[in-house]
């Protein structure tokens, strides 16, 4: 592809290593879990999709140019379709169709964005994208990429896509999708967007969209019926925060580096935590009652991390997000800053809901071999954000580890618990709206069906004309014309007329 620049360029910078490690570990853990838990029938078919998806997913982290990035991204997205539809049920087929439609849409937007950005940058190298100067082309491209990311992470109004896929795919695959696949969206933001070079309107729109996604996902997720469904809404909610972080850094160059850092931390923290929860939600219900208590306790770790309880990775992530918002000035950032702790409340409520639903779930017993993948992810959740080179030192420097900060970070979780306890004591029963994972998206097939039916309306056939009339008339005219008296008279008239004409 010499037309626009180079292809198949690979990079290994700190971002690649961070995301690469996350992706590799999560795909590996999900793969191991799937290998030990899936029935042998159909296992090779599963891995026929899983391996390309993991390859593509992991390779995106190292892609250095638009084309390899797009290729890896597509490979992961398209191959993941096989994971969503693996069970072969009607529901999974329907989920697969919805997934594929949204993937196609996302890919289209991403391709358009990549084309626009490479044209604007005059190069296909991703490093040129992030340094783009402000221009309408850059804005257009960035908007397209943001659209693609929005589709990928299920931003409003597509919140249902993550829960839908997680609930349908086998647990290992769901873990990989939740822990790695959605984080590719975060990578996309970091790698492609010209932070600091976009109009304020774009930045604010993304922030609003991110925040809205976060809250709406929580609201819907509270009524989800399956554990993995709840986790899916939680993912959507968390990815809303990622968008919020991205949005805050898009326009103001002061917040650019902070925003990138926040996205990285959020992605890392959420990737491991969500993957751990996913695998745990598959292992724990199959345990004996005693072990089950232990398992649930272990699961509390990633859940607390998500809530942002002090000293967890989630805490670091939330802190990074606050830093970004503080670096900005204006009505919106301040409002968002004020609302931010409430996202923690929402996440805590979702986690409580998760444990509640999980308690009622039963699955087949899992062999001991199902533990390692899960445990590795748990460890990663506990440590990743802190083990990151320089992370602890930076945190200390920024006062994250001071007592006031820690206390501030505690109250959303406590509030959520108190809220639930209060409701219990007051014997207020929350409404029992059972939201199937996928919510509004489940209506899509109906809409498509209706459109299809509308298009298929029998086209009003024109009434068959009496086709014999005109030819018969013409033939009769000719028959009269060629009859001798008429024709010979015609000749005489012709001669006379011509004589008159030429004489004049």
């Amino acid at each position, binding site marked *: *592809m*010499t*037309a*626009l620049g180079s292809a198949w360029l690979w990079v290994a910078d700190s971002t690649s290593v961070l995301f690469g490690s996350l992706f590799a570990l999560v795909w590996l853990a999900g793969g191991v879990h799937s290998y030990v838990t899936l029935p042998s029938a159909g296992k090779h078919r599963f891995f026929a999709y899983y391996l390309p998806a993991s390859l593509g997913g992991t390779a995106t982290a190292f892609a250095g140019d638009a084309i390899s990035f797009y290729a890896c991204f597509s490979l992961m997205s*398209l191959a993941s379709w096989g994971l969503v539809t693996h069970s072969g049920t009607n529901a999974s087929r329907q989920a697969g169709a919805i997934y*594929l439609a949204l993937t196609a*849409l996302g*890919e*289209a937007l991403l391709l358009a964005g990549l*084309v626009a950005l490479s044209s604007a940058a005059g190069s296909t190298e991703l490093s040129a994208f992030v340094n783009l100067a402000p221009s309408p082309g850059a804005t257009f491209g960035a908007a397209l990429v943001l659209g693609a990311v929005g589709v990928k992470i299920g931003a409003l109004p597509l919140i249902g896509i993550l829960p839908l896929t997680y609930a349908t795919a086998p647990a290992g695959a769901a873990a990989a999708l939740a822990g790695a696949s959605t984080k590719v969206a975060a990578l996309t933001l970091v790698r492609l967007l010209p932070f600091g070079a976009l109009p304020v309107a774009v930045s604010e729109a993304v922030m609003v969209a991110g925040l809205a996604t976060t809250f709406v996902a929580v609201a819907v997720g509270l009524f989800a019926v399956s554990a993995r469904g709840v986790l899916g809404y939680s993912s959507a909610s968390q990815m809303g925060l990622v968008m919020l972080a991205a949005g805050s850094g898009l326009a103001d160059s002061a917040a650019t580096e902070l925003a990138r850092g926040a996205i990285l931390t959020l992605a890392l923290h959420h990737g491991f935590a969500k993957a751990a929860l996913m695998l745990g939600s598959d292992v724990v219900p199959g345990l004996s009652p005693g072990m089950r208590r232990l398992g649930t306790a272990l699961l509390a770790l990633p859940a607390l991390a998500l809530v942002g309880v002090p000293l967890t990775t989630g805490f670091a992530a939330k802190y990074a997000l606050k830093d970004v918002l503080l670096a900005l000035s204006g009505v919106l950032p301040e409002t968002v800053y004020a609302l931010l702790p409430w996202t923690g409340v929402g996440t805590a409520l979702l986690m409580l809901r998760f444990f509640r639903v999980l308690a009622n779930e039963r699955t087949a017993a899992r062999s001991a071999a199902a533990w390692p993948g899960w445990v590795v992810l748990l460890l990663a959740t506990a440590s990743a954000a802190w083990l990151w080179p320089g992370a602890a030192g930076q945190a200390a420097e920024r006062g994250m580890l001071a007592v006031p900060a820690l206390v501030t970070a505690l109250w959303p979780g406590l509030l959520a618990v108190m809220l639930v306890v209060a409701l219990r004591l007051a014997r207020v029963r929350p409404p029992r709206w059972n939201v199937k994972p996928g919510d509004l998206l489940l209506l899509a097939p109906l809409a498509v069906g209706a459109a299809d039916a509308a298009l298929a309306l029998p086209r009003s056939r024109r009434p068959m004309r009496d086709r014999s009339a005109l030819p018969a008339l013409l033939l009769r005219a000719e028959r009269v014309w060629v009859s001798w008296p008429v024709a010979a008279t015609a000749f005489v008239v012709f001669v006379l007329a011509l004589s008159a004409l030429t004489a004049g």
Partner: protein
Amino acid sequence: MLWLPILIPALAGALTFLLGERRTRRRNTVNLIAATAAAAATLSLAGAAFQGTAAQASLPLGPGLQLAVRGDLTGLLFACVVTLLWGVTLVYAIGYMSHDRNRARFFGFFAWCIAAANGVALARDPLSLFVFYEILSLCTYPLVVHSGTPEAIAAGRKYLLYAFGGGAALLAGTAWLVAIAGPVQFTPGGALLAAESHTFALRWVFALMAAGFCVKAALMPLHGWLPSAMVAPAPVSSLLHAVAVVKAGVFGIVRLVNDLFGPELATSLGVAQPLALAAAVTIGVASVIALRQDDLKRRLAYSTVAQLAYITLGTALCTPLAAAGALAHLAHHAVMKITMFFTVGSLGQTLHVKVLGTMGGVARRMPLTMASFSVAALALAGVPPLAGFASKWLLAGGAFESGDWWALLVYVSGGALTLGYMVPILLASVRPGAHEPAERWESDPRMLWPIIAVALASVVFGVSASAPWSPARWALAAVSPVFGGWTP
């Protein structure tokens, strides 16, 4: 030398007729030798063109009138696609038609179509292009009606109505053009500098000629003949209705915009924009219709309508990248779509599977065939690094470059829709069904190997898009003079 790509198939066709119905072996030999010779001739011409020597030759046809050919890069790209795929299709057709009647007629007209398509590719001026274009229209008819069923005859009538209607428009446009501008030749960047003041007439000339070409290019609303023409045998659908005939239409548009009016004049006259708009609408509408087709060939036919509009749109955008993308897509779409039509033909002939609903188990029964189809389908949807991606990348880049951002969105959403109408075929083939794995060959090897070959081509063209010989690079080199020596 320049006449060889036209003469060899023409003579092969004549010889095929003279050999008659029964001398099968000799007929096949003649055709295969001719295809090889024509391929060699075309490739060597292309080699010469890359060296920068665009040879030309002409034959007088009357006062102020000549049939002239020239071997430039644009034309030779098309000629090479047609000629090389002719050889592949011959092998396939020999297998496919092995039990059919009227084979002499079939192969004879088939060869003549190739001759005419090569003529269209190499024509030096609008009149010569018209001459070959009409011959192509004519020689396609017997292939459309090959089976002789009432359905085929009706399709043939429809085809003729469109083809000759378009031909009449083209004739009127060409005559008008020659009347105002004299005997012009295709010149990269435009040949009408001297006649630029006739804006009224030139607009009409463009409209008439474009209408003529758009019939074959199946631009909506002139596309009606193409889905009906799918009653023809699979090799015809494959090579003619996915490559030679329809591409002759889009190639005509390429010549019209790039080499006759020139991108500048086409834009300043305001004639390119309506064409682009029509193409954009076609991409959307045809793709949506394709989603709804149960008959495999019809689904592919509407896909072709949409994909041809990609090329038309790229050309009408009048930017170097888009023009290059259009030319590259002309070649890329050829290999991708021919794979699919071969596959569908093979399914029909081997398993009598012709609609989506009966495809269950086909992937198990014909794994290599369906794998090839999948590659082509994904390539068509623009999945990297396959061929369709390379051309779509250029097209989309060109759309952005021209400032027509909507066109960029059209291209990418077209890609999404492509996935939408291709994936159901893949899904249907892996669904459980009545077909059991084959014992030895999954189908007649003469049909299998061509499918694999063209599927590989759509991989190779994409992966090595930056190799100097690739269609993409070729297209870039070909449009360079159109935009004053532009280089990427």
